[in-house]
């Protein structure tokens, strides 16, 4: 990976998340492009996906009023799950990308809710899963394929040998 690109890219995605995507609601959910990027990069490069998850989570936590670090942990758990499955799933299929984006979103939200409850936030889990997580998972699933394709190009730019092998 072209390392110097990941930090501004993730910072920009966090900025767009707080200024634009969180203003456009579908039920109570919204597109989480930062999480989608972390999921897609974890599919392409599991080890770097872990670093993206930590950095992306930290950037998101800067714009959050909740306990610092919980988004980072939630993103890391998703990246670990995807990395653990790497090589066992055929992740180049669009269906697989969409399925992983959907389940990744659900895992991230479950982790986030669990941590918030742990820190004493009284949340109605059933309502949040139905009105926040499911709409977000739906939007993330739709966005996952174009994001994956865009990041795949970046992945090949950073590693032309891989591009030749996969071609």
């Amino acid at each position: 990976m072209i390392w110097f690109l990941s930090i501004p890219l993730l910072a920009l995605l966090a900025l767009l998340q707080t200024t634009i995507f969180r203003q456009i609601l579908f039920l109570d959910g919204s597109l989480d492009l930062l999480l989608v990027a972390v999921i897609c990069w974890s599919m392409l490069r599991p080890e770097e996906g872990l670093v993206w998850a930590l950095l992306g989570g930290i950037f998101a936590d800067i714009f959050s009023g909740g306990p610092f670090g919980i988004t980072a942990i939630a993103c890391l758990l998703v990246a670990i799950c995807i990395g653990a499955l790497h090589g066992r799933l055929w992740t180049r299929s669009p269906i697989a990308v969409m399925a992983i984006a959907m389940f990744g979103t659900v895992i991230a939200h479950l982790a986030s809710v669990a941590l918030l409850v742990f820190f004493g936030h009284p949340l109605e889990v059933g309502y949040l899963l139905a009105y926040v997580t499911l709409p977000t998972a739906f939007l993330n699933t739709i966005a996952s394929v174009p994001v994956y394709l865009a990041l795949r190009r970046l992945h090949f730019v950073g590693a032309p040998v891989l591009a030749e092998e996969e071609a």
Partner: protein
Amino acid sequence: MFNPRRRFFLIALALLLAAVGLVVLGQVGIIQPVQDLALRGVSGAQHTISTTFFNVRDFITAPRNLQELIQRNNQLEAQVAQLEAELVTLQEQASEADALRALLGAARQQPENRYLVAQVIGRDTNPFLHYLILDEGSDAGVRRGMPVVNEKGLVGRVTEVSSTASKVQLIIDPNSVINARIQTSRAEGVLVGQSTGGLQMIYIPQNVTVTTGDLVVTSGLGGGFPPEILIGRVISVHKRDYELYQTAVIEPRNDFTSLEMVLIITNFEPVQIGPLQGTTS
């Protein structure tokens, strides 16, 4: 040295521990200055992006004005591009003026308060929490605990401040707790935010009659908010004879999804009653 799978899990474990460490540091308060610094660095960009977003959204969601634009387009073909740009700017200025006029009206109702107008430049990235990011911070005199209102009533309170931005916990956040009063019966209770984006008033004494439509205002008890700020109205009451208190569901007057400008009450000092209770909070 390690096979790839083992290496992956070792990195994962190290980063997970680092993240847990961040959470611990965040709880202790060590991360706060770094977070403030980062927020200060990006608040300008946040302001630009959110203003552009509001302009585009207002342009798209104004069908009547769009029709006017189309008519002008037919009449003045040569100048259409210039007029469109001009109109969008004017529309934004007009809506900003409307918002300021409404806020000014609210400010005049309570002349004893000093207000600072702030623009909403961001929302909480965590979808389960309800916080706003405003474009005014400690440089403009904003302090932690200051109440935030608009022309419709109470919005929330400032929870974090950097030099150029501040975070506001909305009253609908699940962690928000406000001492409130039902205006007609003067019954007091505690208003708590709900995950559903609504409000619930708890600890209302059983002997008080609460009816649908009653207005709910801040009581001023506890010193967290000034008294008599409008919050919402009662939409349903839950009273059971075997319970100590009754509860009511409150509909907030504000639509928190479309807030663009707010007023921070800058001359209100929240009272710290922690020491009186013998514990610090």
